[in-house]
């Protein structure tokens, strides 16, 4: 395949960025998108130019490190995949592909396509845990039966990889799908109920502090989420927050 890439280049957080055009040839449809980027970078390096910086690590869709806004969509045109699982067979010979970083006020660009998502970590520091010591002096795991339904729904929420596609997709740069998923995982399990009220308030407060926007229910985040995290989690978070404030 022969392609034209238009890629966001920005030297560092302070620099002004711009789209730069790179033609590329001999791309196999079986390559992953990031392998295509590897080919480009190898060419750039050997030409003495600076390679395109992008985040990536596991390359199997679970670490949440890769990002990229490809042709206007977080993680590109395919559904339920991260950029590293996107394959070039989803594109056509001769295509022009626009590649940008995830954009949000709370996710400043570090370099090119690399962004700073530490705001997500700080939201988790505020309450994304169950306050239990790791000494091992807990009760037997089977002492609290949990209905299969609750366990499965909690697992669906817990599948979030923290990539930030929801924020990048949302016109308001809202992080509610991310926060809702974590709040839900714990709110659905008996272990998490004890401090549910404090948790949701602390996490939402931190989320607002970080500069994420509000939710206006367009549902775009759910569509672009590589792990199919459901909007129900936002509703559940709002319910938990309301409960916490009322009672």
């Amino acid at each position, binding site marked *: 395949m022969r392609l034209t890439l238009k890629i966001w280049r920005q030297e560092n957080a302070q620099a002004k960025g711009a789209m730069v055009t790179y033609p590329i040839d001999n791309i196999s449809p079986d390559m992953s998108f990031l392998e295509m980027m590897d080919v480009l970078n190898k060419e750039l390096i050997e030409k003495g130019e600076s390679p395109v*910086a992008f985040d990536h690590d*596991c390359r*199997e869709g679970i670490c949440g*490190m890769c990002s990229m806004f490809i042709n206007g969509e977080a993680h590109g045109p395919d559904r339920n995949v991260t950029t590293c699982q996107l394959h070039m067979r989803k594109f056509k010979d001769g295509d022009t592909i626009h590649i940008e970083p995830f954009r949000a006020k709370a996710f400043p660009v570090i370099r090119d396509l*690399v962004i*700073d998502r530490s705001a997500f970590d700080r939201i988790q520091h505020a309450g994304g845990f169950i306050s239990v010591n790791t000494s*091992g002096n*807990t009760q037997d795991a089977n002492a609290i*039966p949990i209905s299969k339904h609750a366990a499965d729904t909690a697992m669906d929420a817990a599948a979030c990889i923290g990539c930030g596609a929801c924020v990048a997709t949302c016109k308001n740069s809202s992080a509610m799908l991310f926060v809702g998923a974590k709040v839900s*995982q714990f709110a659905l399990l008996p272990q998490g109920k004890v401090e549910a009220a404090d948790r949701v308030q602390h996490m939402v407060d931190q989320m607002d502090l970080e500069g994420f926007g509000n939710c206006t229910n367009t549902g775009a985040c759910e569509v672009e989420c590589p792990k199919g995290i459901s909007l129900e989690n936002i509703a559940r978070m709002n319910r938990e927050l309301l409960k916490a404030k009322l009672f």
Partner: protein
Amino acid sequence: MSTLNSNVPEGPLKDKWTNHKNNIDLVNPVNKRKIDVIVVGTGLAGASASATLAELGYNVKTFCFQDSPRRAHSIAAQGGINAAKNYQGDGDSTHRLFYDTVKGGDYRSREANVYRLAEVSANIIDQCVAQGVPFARDYGGLLDNRSFGGVLVSRTFYAKGQTGQQLLLGAYSAMNRQIGRGKIKMYNRHEMMDLVKVNGKARGIIARNLVTGEIERHSAHAVVIASGGYGNVFFLSTNAMGSNVSAAWKIHRKGAYFANPCFTQIHPTCIPVSGDHQSKLTLMSESLRNDGRIWVPKKLEDAQAIREGRLKPTELAEEDRDYYLERRYPAFGNLVPRDVASRAAKERCDEGYGVNATGDAVYLDFAASIQRYGTEQAHVRGLDENDGALVKKLGKEVIKAKYGNLFQMYYKIVDQDPYETPMMIYPAVHYTMGGVWVDYNLMTTIPGCFAIGEANFSDHGANRLGASALMQGLADGYFVLPYTIGDYLSDDIRTGPISTESPEFDQAEAEVKAQIDAFVNNKGTKSVDHFHRKLGKIMWNQCGMSRNAVGLQKAIKDIQELREDFYKDVLVPGSANEFNEELAKAGRVADFLELGELFAKDALERTESCGGHFREESQTPEGEALRDDVNFAFVSAWEYTGKPSEAVLHKEELKYENIELKTRSYK
């Protein structure tokens, strides 16, 4: 050559850990606040250790190269975690888990460590459930189990196909609680560049901020290395792109012995290599072998027709298929340990029975399970069990509930639907049993420097059983290291803060900066990946699933030449004071180029076959691995002397007092 002391406590096996805990020195809570501990790496071992150490009261500084601790590669573990809970009532016990692990490791692990691992395993599950890890449950609300290779019980706990993710997020949440309290200071996007020793003790590290390029000094009373394994020495592996040996290798260069580097696990069920552009390999969880049957065509002409696209696997009649694992190993069938399954796949492909275009693939087929589950579901729901289409539909639903994410992953990568046609799989490098040598307290040969999780060598011998890596990572981090480190630190309560203004820190920093400058100013012609791929080819061809003396000698020579070429001709663009991934990669590959040589040397000296280490010169007439307990019942711990192939061997004799040494049989 000297003999190493593993500091295993006296007394009967089952009382060793309890007695040891009762007898080691403790640090009182007030004094813990005066002690700093550095943890490098935030996978299961590093994250759990950081959380527990902080909770105990130590000041913890934790480093990871990713942008968040939650992204360490433990996140990608799929299948599950073992624990001797015996919830299924199928005869499991601490002793059986211990026995299975030692046997699975082909009798090359340390008895006392493995027993302790089995002993604390049940506690891990309790701990994780209390933290909100959403393990799979049955309809009664109790925890569900599945079985893994090399064992005859169901002791594996799981969270869909994302067990590693859920366990790591659990440990990450425990860390978050301590970060929020200020007890852990987290350094994301930082790489450890070297260890700093003061008066022979580990007293800090030099780190590089990967965003700004700044070189930083960090001091502590002890340093814990939890940086994972070195599978990426093969370039292609199931490890993450950034997984590296550097932290472990740096401490090796400073005096920590490196044990059994040649013990590498080649996992049998990975998606085969598709072309030269390949950057990494993707695992298909071993749990799939619960329901998938592995086969190749019985006739060479059928295999050829399949390779050329003239025949579909689904068209091949049952009697024309060779379910070679079931044929060779009737007792364990498709659930033989990983090393056995991998070698068997290679053997069939080498004989010409491979099924993809490259000839390096076998089938993993779910049709029989879909049929069996579908029939069962039809029966439960009172539907027609003879309706083929209905049974298939119901069966697919069951398989989807169990392995949905894995099937989706396969479909996205290969572009074939594994519900309709069998998966193609082939072995790939997955895990390294070898690693930094540690004693019973998980301390390396450098006082104050500890190694935990995959970074150390201690528990899996020459082959690791499935679902045991997660168990070991969390056991080391939550329940072992936090106790044993106290014994060492109890001598440090009067030391006070360690200064970073000392000749030792000056020197370590100067050396780090010199290496970085050398890379940036080298201005060669080839990218770092060029050399890494070449190293990977040497490793896979000469040090892969099957090894011999001639090949290993050649590997040592080839790696030496490649290393020389690397320093002459590597091209690292950009500067030292910026975000520069190529520069980070150059440092990692430089260390892989040394480790690879030691790896080959270790494989050359161990002329027996055991576990994942198969020497062609040492096999039975049926082609099974032939162990040599008379000459090789020891751990090879290598001391760095400047040139990897001239490393000095130290032996730790392995004594089996509770298990009889015998030939592993899964027939």
